Every structure is written in C-alpha cells, then in structure tokens.
C-alpha cells in the first residue's frame, strides 16, 4: 500500500526523528507548560516557536552546505543540532 511512497531508510529516520521531537515536545508541554519569553532572538517566543525557527534554520544550514561547499553534511548536522539546542535554551 505504501510502496508508491518509495520509502528509504534515511528518509524514514528523518521523519521518525521529527515525529519523536514533536512527541517529546508535546509531553514536555503537558508536564511543564511553557511561558512566552524573550531571549537573544528579536521577538518573544514560545518553546514551539523556537523549535520551528530551529528546524527551519537547520534546513537552510544544510542547503547552504550543499549549495556552497563540498564539505560533509555531517558537519551541517552537527552545527544544526548545536544551534537547535542553543536556540531552545537561550533563544
């Protein structure tokens, strides 16, 4: 039934990770509801806002690596993970 979707292992891991992040964030929200606050970003954000900004900017970090360099994408991934952590904590 899902053969037409042409799943591959890397894309399955990618979507499973996104789903896991959303699930963890939902549980986190129920256990400890977040309060909108202002960090180093120019706007006040909620936890979900920061996650969205983090994921979107991570996508752009990967695109920049692909478009401008020949470097391994693992470096882009490492930068993105660190960036996402910084953003969620201090953003």
């Amino acid at each position, binding site marked *: 039934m899902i053969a037409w979707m042409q799943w591959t292992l890397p*894309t399955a891991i990618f979507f499973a990770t996104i789903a896991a992040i959303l699930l963890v964030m939902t549980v986190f929200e129920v256990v400890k509801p977040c309060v909108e606050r202002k960090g180093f970003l120019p706007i006040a954000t909620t936890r979900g806002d920061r996650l969205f900004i983090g994921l979107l900017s991570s996508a752009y970090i990967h695109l920049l690596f*692909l478009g401008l360099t020949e470097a391994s*994408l693992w470096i882009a991934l490492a930068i993105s993970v660190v960036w996402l952590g910084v953003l969620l904590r201090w953003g």
Partner: protein
Amino acid sequence: MRKVPNNRAWWLVLPVFILVAFSALIPLMTVVNYSVQDIFGPNAAYFVGTDWFREVLRNESLQASLGRQVVFSAAVLLIEIPLGIGIALLMPTGGKRASLCLILLAIPLLIPWNVVGTIWQIFGRGDIGLFGRFLNEIGINYNYTADPVDAWFTVLLMDVWHWTPLVALLCYSGLRAIPQAFYQAAEIDRASRWAVFRYIQLPRLKSVLVIAVLLRFMDSFMIYTEPFVLTGGGPGSSTTFLSQTLTTMAVGQFDIGRAAAFSLVYFLIVLLVSWLFFTAITYPDRDK
C-alpha cells in the same frame, strides 16, 4: 475569574488533521522520499543521497528562474497592495453604487486562470488586439511575443488586473468593519484625511492586509497558468517562472527525483518568506 485548563476541544480538530495528513503531509513525505532517489519507474528507484539537491542549488537556469520569480512577486506586492487599498478607500460606502462596484471588482476573480491568459494574449496582439493595436497606433513599439520588457509588462499588467480586486475587496471589508465612533472622534480632533488613514484605517486594516499579503505572495510565487498561456515563458526564457521550470522538469522530462528536490527548496523558500511576513505584520499586536 480563573481560566479552567481544558484541552478536550482539540479532539474536534482531529478530522481536519486527518484531512491535512492525506492532502499535504503524505504527499510531502513522498516528495522527500523521491528527492533522494533517481526514479525510472514504479520498481526502479536508485538511492542517490543529496546529489539532486546539490545539482539543483548549483543550476544556473534554476537560479535565474528563482531571480525572476522573486522580482515578479516583489513587483506584484508593491503594485497590488497599495492599489488595492486605494481602490477600497475610493469605493462608495453603501447603496447601489457600492453593490455595482463590488460586482465589477469581482468579475476578474471569477474568470479561470487559463481564460485570463487567453484574454490577454488576444488583447495584447498588435494586429487584432485592442491594447496592442492601440499602443502601436500611438507610436509605441509594443510586441510582447518578441520583446522581454513588453512581455514582463504584459504579465504584470495581467496579474494586477486579475488580482488587485481581491486585495481591494479584502480591504473594503476591513474598512466597513471600523466603527463610526472612530471617525467621529477624528472629526472632533479635526484630524486630516491623511491622519485618519494613518492612525485609524491602516491599523484597523492590519488583519486583512496580513491575509492579502500572504495570499498574493504565495499565489504570485507559484504563478503558472497565466504566463504559460500568454507568453509560454518567452521570449527566450524571460518570463519562465519557478513553477513552469518545475513542471517542465517533472512532467516534460519526467525527472521526478530532481523535480522533487527542487520542489522542497521551493517549499522552504515559501515557508520562510510567509513566516517572515506573518511575524513582521502580526508581532507588534501580539501582546494587545
């Protein structure tokens, strides 16, 4: 009064969520899957990693197409938003004249996109078209099939004719929702016409303008049918926008993997710009 936390109403959103899953999430996942493979047929797909993305991001014709698309969308917003607000301000506030204006404004919106393209294709012709013939008669050398500037001018004019009414109708509804008391207060303060617009009408139009800007940006960024019918992307590739390049790649060349990678880059651009617009326009009011 203390607010009682109750999230059970979220269950009511479940049908929409299921609908969105089928109409957007599953197709999006499929596109992501396609973008990392070279697909020759239903059972012949080969994993290529991020090669398509690398290729798409470095392709000069795609970059040129993206450049044209950005210029086009910027021009559309810069012309249609102020023009739409202006038309809405000039429209009668009520009675039969208002109804007549509304009907006249709605007409371009009711015409199917390919018909709009055909109308302007004939309208702009130098031999039988009213517009093209008129320009040629008064001494302006106008030919949208041969001159890139004329082609751009015609595509922009067509889009302005087709979609400014939408902005005007949205703004008109926003203007009608402003209570009369605001105008009375402005009159007591002897506020100028500009001050009324700047401090009463424009701030109250903000919510409809968010919708107008987002709709016009997303719509103009994915424009396909009208320029395709009018100019076919030419002369040369001067009016070939992103979606036409994408369609040629996916349907014309059946290059599904490359087209999928290209669509994702396209999607990320739309997502970023829409989010920026939305945040920039709504953020100042968020605390109120």
